[in-house]
């Protein structure tokens, strides 16, 4: 009998020991579910929305955007003030005296130079290296360093180990000398940073507020870099982003980060604007399963689900929309009082889905057309002809996709840049699609005739002259349903044959990169408040130009806009550029703009915003009625209203 019990006892002992050593996080003032797991907390290397969101809690760049202001006004961050030269190419930032790291050390301008230089080194592999290249000479530095290490890689085999070490150090010194001599990024002293731009960049301050432009603590991070005699590059190790090692400068510090379990943050005692915080601790449990996230909210374990993706979200939102329709008068009255979306939700206590909120994203879902003359298998590519692309774009029933397939209230898109998301920018009209002719059968007939005529003009007398049209998309997220709808439209209205090609995301990515497709789905969450954040995607040779679209007139407009100092004229140039791709050339056909569904109780959580570029700064959040902080509803301020509660 004892012998039989032994395995049982062994198992029980194993459990006991491990459980005893596991310590759960204490409850936090605010708990939310992020969009996904954090991939990195190194600001210069990140590009995922969930990473950037945490970075804005842990780091503070030179300036910040006030997301509770209707225009996302630029406000001071580490820099307390700045000067801009008359030609808008030289920016001088003055760092505040009380800007400190979380270990109490002062933040210096030199550390900004170090941090931004990291992003400009090819070996850092920053996804956003391009954004830093607005700085004068930085693009050349990037190329120069790439060429330098590439040349080394070619001749490394001939060198002895001792020679290699000597050579990589010499190369590094040379690179630093090149940087200092040629790149327009200088620390004039500990508190003054001077940046010289290649050309006037109206959105430069907006970029400076972007989390990727945050400083990192040089004494720490440099421990993780070493010159590699094998490649000639700096070999970067990570891990300094994790507590207890990490040193940051933002509103919060990372107290605990357990892989796939969650993050735990605490207010940073050394942050200069510490008094503005209304919460002390934030917990971000890692919850991947969409249902688990909803259950966690329902049982009160989390207060905000930032991306509701459970299948039944459609039903939840429908219920809310039905309620709003029923009480349309009341909603209008509240809107007229100037209440924002969340305040209206709070004012309608009987809404059965009061906690569900649809928030616009600064993002677009579209279909790519491969614009190269031939496909990878050597066949001629019909979509090389802009008329064919236009015809195919005209017959997509976008409204059906939004209303019948997705059903989460996304706005139909006929421009790549969401309308009204950038102050001062006027979107072009865009191309009409079949759903614009609802209730107008004659108009629709004429529209379809125009589309078919375009095909004939392009030399395709009959639909059978076109090859089978392939739609490429990646698995998951309902892309298959959208592709089916689009394929049906093309069959129905143009009479062409279609085939659906669903691939694993890695393979999908490879196919896009190598232009191994005819048409494919795509999406883009944009970064900064300027049309170029979308328009650069179609520039000739851009790394993200999966369409391989190239139009010299389009590139020329973007170049011209670069040097245009008058903001209105510049925006007009960009409108014309977007008009070219959205009305004439159609390298891509926008389908809808993304919407995120939030789950939170508007009576309890305040400080979130529904700006068209919906960036959430979680350090602004106040949990009402918890007895901590000011416990006052925060609302979006209009232009000209002062900012309350800040020492600045």
């Amino acid at each position, binding site marked *: 009998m004892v012998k039989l019990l032994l395995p049982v006892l062994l198992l029980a002992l194993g459990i006991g020991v*491990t459980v005893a050593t*596991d310590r759960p996080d204490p409850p936090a003032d605010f708990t939310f579910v992020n969009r996904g797991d954090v991939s990195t907390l190194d600001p210069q290397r990140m*590009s995922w929305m969930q990473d950037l969101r945490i970075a804005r809690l842990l780091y503070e760049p030179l300036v910040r955007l006030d997301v509770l202001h209707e225009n996302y006004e630029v406000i001071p961050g580490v820099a307390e003030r700045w000067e801009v030269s008359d030609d808008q190419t030289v920016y001088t930032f003055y760092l505040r005296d009380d800007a400190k790291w979380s270990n109490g050390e002062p933040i210096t301008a030199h550390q900004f130079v170090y941090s931004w230089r990291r992003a400009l080194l090819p070996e850092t592999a920053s996804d956003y290296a391009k954004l830093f290249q607005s700085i004068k000479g930085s693009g050349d530095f990037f190329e120069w360093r790439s060429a330098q290490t590439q040349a080394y890689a070619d001749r490394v085999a001939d060198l002895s180990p001792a020679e290699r070490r000597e050579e990589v150090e010499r190369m590094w010194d040379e690179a630093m000398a090149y940087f200092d001599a040629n790149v327009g990024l200088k620390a004039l002293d500990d508190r003054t940073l001077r940046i010289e731009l290649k050309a006037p960049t109206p959105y430069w301050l907006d970029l400076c507020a972007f989390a990727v432009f945050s400083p990192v603590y040089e004494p720490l991070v440099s421990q*993780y870099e070493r010159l590699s005699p094998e490649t000639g590059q700096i070999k970067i190790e990570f891990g300094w982003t994790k507590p207890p090692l990490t040193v940051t400068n933002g509103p919060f510090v990372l107290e605990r980060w357990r892989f796939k379990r969650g993050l735990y943050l605490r207010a940073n005692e050394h942050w200069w604007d510490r008094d503005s915080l209304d919460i002390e601790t934030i917990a971000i449990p*890692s919850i*991947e399963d969409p249902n688990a996230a909803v*259950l966690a909210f329902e049982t009160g374990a989390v207060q905000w689900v930032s991306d509701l993706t459970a299948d039944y979200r459609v039903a939840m939102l429908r219920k809310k929309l039905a309620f709003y329709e029923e009480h349309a008068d009341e909603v209008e009255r509240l809107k007229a009082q100037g209440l924002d979306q969340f305040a209206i939700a709070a004012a309608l206590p009987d809404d059965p889905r009061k906690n569900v909120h649809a928030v616009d994203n600064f993002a677009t879902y579209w279909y790519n057309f491969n614009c190269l003359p031939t496909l990878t298998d050597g066949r001629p590519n019909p979509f090389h002809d802009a008329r064919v692309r236009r015809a195919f774009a005209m017959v997509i029933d976008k409204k059906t996709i939004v209303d019948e397939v997705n059903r989460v209230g996304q706005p139909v898109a006929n421009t790549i840049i969401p309308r009204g998301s950038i102050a001062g920018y006027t979107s072009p009209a865009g191309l009409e699609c079949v759903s614009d002719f609802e209730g107008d059968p004659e108009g629709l007939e004429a529209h379809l005739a125009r589309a078919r005529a375009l095909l004939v003009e392009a030399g395709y007398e009959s639909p059978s002259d076109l090859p089978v049209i392939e739609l490429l998309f990646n698995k998951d997220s309902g892309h298959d349903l959208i592709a089916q709808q689009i394929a049906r439209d093309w069959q129905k209205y143009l009479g062409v044959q279609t085939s659906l090609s669903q691939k*694993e995301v890695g393979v999908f*990515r490879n196919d896009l990169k190598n232009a191994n497709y005819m048409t494919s789905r795509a999406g883009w969450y944009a970064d900064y408040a300027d049309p170029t954040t979308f328009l650069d995607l179609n520039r000739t040779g851009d790394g993200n130009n999966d369409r391989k679209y190239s139009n010299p007139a389009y590139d020329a407009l973007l170049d011209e806009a670069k040097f245009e100092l008058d903001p209105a004229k510049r925006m007009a140039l960009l409108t014309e550029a977007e008009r070219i791709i959205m009305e004439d050339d159609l390298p891509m056909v926008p389908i809808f703009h993304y919407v995120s569904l939030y789950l939170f109780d508007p009576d309890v959580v305040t400080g979130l915003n529904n700006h068209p570029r919906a960036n959430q700064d979680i350090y602004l959040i106040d949990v009402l009625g918890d007895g901590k902080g000011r416990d006052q509803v925060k609302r979006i301020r209009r232009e000209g209203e002062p900012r309350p509660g800040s020492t600045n």
Partner: protein
Amino acid sequence: MRRLIFGRLAQLPLILLVIYTITLALAWAVPGNPLENPEGRQPPAAVVEAMKRQYNLDSFPRFYFSYLTSATGIDYASDLVSGRLAEQREQAEAAGVAAPPRYIFDLGPSLKYEDWRVNEIVAGALPVSIVLGFAAILIALVVGLLAGVIGAVKPNSAADIATLVIALIGISLPSFVVGMLLLIVFAVSFSFFPVGGWGKPSQMVLPAVTLSLPFAAYIARLTRMGMIEALGADYIRTARAKGLAENTVLFKHALKNAFLPVLSYLGPATAFAMTGSFVVEKVFNVPGLGQHFINGVLNKDLFLIMGVVLIFATLLVLFNLIVDVLYRWVDPRIS
């Protein structure tokens, strides 16, 4: 016995080397580039090339040997001897910060979760998987053995059929269904347990029960078969003839023999319970090791794939060894 243990342990490196070679060759052939984002912004081509060079992803033989020297501790030893380790520590001390952690058996960085080394990922997930797997096997053992004995004592009775049906359900129902059902009933409707997460004992009950079901069902069937066979044997008739109490006959004499097949199943079952809990981990949001098998391959995270496969292979060998040792101890006839 000693020969068995040392012999098996001596084989371990060879087994691992073969597994390493095969897995790496397969993982290398998976399409996709781990250094590129599946969606969103892409780093310039020059950067991707540079990164490939840094991680030796541009050459199979280079990767093969560099990973091998790092995972076997050769790199660590050479840095220790050359004084590079001490140098690193001094540098960090001079800068007033903590020195970068170094691992003897360094399984490399994760390419997808860039801030984490595979060692850290495994160190965080393995204890969770051990608890979850052990708890599931424990529940499975208790439930399975009892159900098996009940069924065998009165074959074809109502109790037997009931346990068989439950066992059938346990084997056939996918764990995401069972998991969701348990969640809705015990976590949402009655609030007996939290909906998910890990750390408190109360959070471990539902996932362990869900994970244990198929194992319990299999153990019940193994036990029932073994018991029916044992109860028909001569020595049981002798035991009963001696006038032993029925419980003694059942649990001391019959179960001892019937348990042997269960015991040999326990080795691989424990290893599978610890690593094959992908679905349960997802439903209950448990930060275990199972998900890294799937995610590693989906993301083509080479270092992570190799790390978890090597760990799993080691566990499998060790658990089988433990079971073999137990087996001989329980039944000395086997040599």
